[in-house]
């Protein structure tokens, strides 16, 4: 760690991991509710658990991105953060606002929450991922603007690197696209357009820039490969992400009442969307291959490679699986979608944040890498979480295929709930995989506290 203000990342990462635990606890709760419908009813109904699960995911990923930016940007810009106090202040505002919102979901009925927060003045609630009360959304905007300002000033008044600029572009895009969440037209078709503009211009657009720059940063650090090489890769990845992702979003306009040409545009362009994810895999493989040094933080190298591979699988392969209109006609909104959603979010964004944490946490704690025991445990937790996520994805894919067949394809289609009953075995197994995921997460957290032999430094100036 070269600059003191980089240390601010630590509080962001700790909050991120704590909320991650919450997210998974609600995930396994819902997983059980899938097979035992009245589990924890009426205390935690499925719809509330679902909101908490997905909102916590987004919020902790935002904490993770912010922490990553606070760690990365000063070092790349070769100066202290523009306003460290602002970063600390925003942390608490975001944490309190986030916490209150989650409590609101859990303690009062959603309609009452809408009333209490005066949703009718500027109605923005009631849409998946964007369930937050309007005041929370305003809070998010304030935090995001302060954050982008802080990072932006640091970048613009310091050394400008490609990594910094790509990251900044991604973060500005993140803040700007969130503004669409305030537009909530009565026309449902229009509403859907703008809904997709938020979350999916994120995950299939600007977040890819964030992901690519974080990955590039960690890879430069752990492999010692020349910056120039990595920058060239970044340019290609970014170009491909934007070219394919923006129009590719048309794959969400197939059946919402939009004009039929979207079936062509969406299919063709989104079929290109795996390319940037594939490029990231190629990029990560090739720089690890050409590495100049063996970094003592092996766990971080593993996370970086894992991110590249799992993002390609989750977003690239499982996205492509159902992105062509004639296929999506059958699979739309089934468990196939959930399979893809889980692996893509985990493989791309969860893992890239964990990569940054793995690389930077030891540095913030005054070491180059975690001790041998801690790394061993962290690597074990990597495999537990990653393999159980693969299992969840495969089980949901199997369930989804069965669902499509019985409910939508066969000559005598069965009703939704009858089909769900027939899928119980897959859901039970998914629950088991979910519990293994949770144990992996606990092991991950434990690894930060494990004592053991310090790593030896083979590499001379590894940092």
């Amino acid at each position, binding site marked *: 760690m070269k600059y003191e203000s980089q240390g601010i990342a630590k509080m962001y990462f700790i909050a991120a991991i704590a909320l991650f635990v919450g997210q998974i606890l609600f995930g396994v709760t819902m997983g059980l509710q899938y097979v035992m419908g009245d589990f924890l009813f009426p205390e935690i109904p499925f719809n509330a658990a679902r909101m908490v699960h997905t909102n916590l995911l987004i919020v902790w990923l935002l904490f993770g991105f912010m922490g990553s930016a606070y760690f990365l940007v000063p070092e790349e810009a070769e100066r202290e953060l523009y306003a460290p106090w602002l970063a600390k202040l925003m942390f608490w505002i975001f944490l309190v606002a986030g916490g209150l919102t989650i409590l609101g979901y859990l303690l009062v009925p959603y309609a009452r929450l809408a009333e209490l927060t005066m949703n009718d003045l500027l109605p923005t609630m009631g849409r998946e991922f964007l369930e937050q009360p309007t005041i929370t959304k305003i809070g998010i905007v304030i935090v995001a603007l302060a954050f982008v300002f802080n990072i932006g000033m640091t970048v613009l008044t310091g050394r400008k690197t490609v990594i910094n600029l790509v990251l900044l572009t991604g973060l500005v895009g993140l803040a700007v696209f969130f503004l669409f969440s305030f537009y909530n037209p009565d026309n449902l078709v229009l509403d859907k357009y703008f809904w997709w503009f938020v979350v999916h211009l994120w995950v299939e657009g600007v977040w890819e820039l964030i992901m690519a720059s974080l990955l590039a940063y960690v890879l430069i650090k752990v492999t010692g490969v020349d910056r120039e090489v990595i920058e060239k890769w970044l340019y290609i990845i970014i170009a491909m992400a934007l070219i394919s992702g923006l129009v590719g979003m048309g794959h969400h306009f197939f059946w919402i009442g939009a004009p039929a040409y979207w079936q062509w545009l969406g299919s063709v362009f989104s079929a290109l969307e795996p390319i940037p994810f594939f490029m990231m895999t190629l990029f990560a493989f090739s720089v690890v291959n050409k590495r100049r040094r*063996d970094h003592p933080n092996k766990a971080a190298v593993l996370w970086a490679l894992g991110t590249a591979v799992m993002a390609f699988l989750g977003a690239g392969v499982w996205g492509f699986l159902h992105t062509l209109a004639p296929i999506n006609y059958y699979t739309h909104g089934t468990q196939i979608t959930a399979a893809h959603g889980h692996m893509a979010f985990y493989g791309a964004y969860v893992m890239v944040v964990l990569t940054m944490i793995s690389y930077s946490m030891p540095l913030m704690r005054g070491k180059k890498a975690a001790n041998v025991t801690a790394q061993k445990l962290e690597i074990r937790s990597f495999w537990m979480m990653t393999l159980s996520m693969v299992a969840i994805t495969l089980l949901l894919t199997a369930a989804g295929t069965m669902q499509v067949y019985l409910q939508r394809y066969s000559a005598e289609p069965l009703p939704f709930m009858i089909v769900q009953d027939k899928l119980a075995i897959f859901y039970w197994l998914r629950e088991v995989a979910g519990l293994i995921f949770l144990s992996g997460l606990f092991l991950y957290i434990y690894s930060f506290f494990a004592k053991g032999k310090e790593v030896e430094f083979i590499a001379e100036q590894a940092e």
Partner: protein
Amino acid sequence: MNTDDLQLKRATSSALLSLLNLTALPVIGFIGLLYVYSKTKPNTIDRYYAVVGIKTSLLAGIALLLVTLLVILLGGFESPLTWVYVTSYFVIVHASFILFATWTLTRSWTGEKLKRQILSK
């Protein structure tokens, strides 16, 4: 083993063709591989990668097409379980082959053989 530029180029073309055979250009990629193979001599890096590519393609052909076909024949076209198995199996195995070919491609760029531990000891 000495490696000149042309050999290196053929090695990377082989790796690329093997990847294309698995993705955008099935069969055509394979024919390309056979063509590259015909130009190589034993004990060279380009022959090595041509062979790796051909082996990968054949193995993928068996694992993906033959096995899938057998499952469909045995399981029956009309059984949902057949499709449950086929989709999950095909997607994950296909993806694994693609990842392997990708790794091969990055290895071929360095002009070395495949072996090297991904993670350092």
